[in-house]
């Protein structure tokens, strides 16, 4: 399993985050929104069937978050910390390698 490309950002936020007001309310940590785990918004979740995937990258391209990244073999990895469950990836997948199922939490 490949590492999330946002791992470094998450670590940096955990280390440097401060609520202290800065002049001009400037946000100094790039990509610090990763602290918001928007996966909690999800009602349906994408299930991925690797054997059906043809690596067309459409799910990776269309994900608005982005909550899909690529592993070493260029297969998509779904980051459920952030996936809001919109279903675009499943809708656009030409081989039905992604299926939306009801969240069971």
């Amino acid at each position: 399993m490949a590492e999330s490309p946002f791992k470094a950002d998450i670590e940096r936020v955990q280390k440097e985050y401060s609520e202290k007001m800065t002049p001009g309310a400037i946000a100094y940590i790039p990509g610090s929104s990763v602290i918001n785990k928007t996966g909690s918004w999800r009602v349906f979740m994408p299930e991925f069937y690797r054997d059906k995937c043809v690596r067309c990258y459409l799910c990776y391209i269309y994900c608005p978050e982005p909550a899909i990244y690529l592993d070493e073999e260029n297969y998509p990895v779904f980051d459920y910390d952030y996936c809001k469950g919109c279903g675009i990836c499943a809708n656009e997948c030409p081989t039905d390698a992604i299926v939306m199922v009801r969240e069971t939490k």
Partner: protein
Amino acid sequence: MVVRKPPITTREYWAPGHAACAGCGCATALKLATKAFSEAMEEKYGDPNAFAIAQATGCMEVVSAVFPYTAWKVPWVHVAFENAAAAASGIEAAWKKKGLKGKILAIGGDGGTADIGLQALSGMLERRHNVVYLMYDNEAYMNTGIQRSSSTPYGAWTTTSPPGKYSIGEDKPKKWVALIAAAHQIPYVATASIGNPFDFVRKMKKAAKVDGPAFVQVHCTCPTGWKSPLEKGVEIARLAIETGVWPLFEIENGDFHNIKIQSPGGGAKVKREGGKVVAIEFKKPIEEYLKLQGRFKHLFKQPEAIDQLREQIKAMWKVLGVEVTLPKPEE
């Protein structure tokens, strides 16, 4: 199996954790736009990070930069609703004086571009700043809760264009900001859509590499404001292209008599003369696009309104120099 390389850089400038609605088409547009920009900057200046963003108030601004966090991994400035282009002009001038290489990306929604920010945009284009202006067009003021903008299409429901006894919904044709931008004789203007991301990325890269100002108007679905299923965002955008509702074109240096038109797909027949597209026969009726969206639901009770919309779409294509035929749905 031969595995193609990813068609676009895996560098991300737009981090998750932002508060866009699920299925937001604009979020996809900004993600792709920044990736395209970074590729263009790498190719042009050898530095993928050589850009900065000036953004107008709007959905994509409020969801991405909530103090003390930010979804942006690129220098980013927000000033107000109507002045992204003016702020971008200032940043560009400052960069010039500091000797920094790169290009500024200004971003605004349709309200911030077609309406309240049009003048600042016009000034920026006319002064020939080295800025790409990206208008993400979700066809209404979504951030304030779905009010009509001048970019709202004819017939659409919004909270300020509700259908009723004396109203069919929005009663004015859509304002095409791309044409207005092109009338400034700037080097590059294009329309694009998240329904065709490869075309969008190509156009963003072209815009980013041009010397001087460029303008890209990208169609992106707003499931919340269009009352459409979350997962259909891309499909709807694609249908807009395939039915003729959303033209894909490029205008260079304001040459209106020489507009480059991209094929819409969806089985449409394209007729060319001397390399120029002169006519398109669409195969899918616009109803296929309309029916997936709650904002057009009421039109199906008034077919004459849909015909009216068809006429407007034909007139718009005529401005582009293309005769189109739009089919009616089979009974």
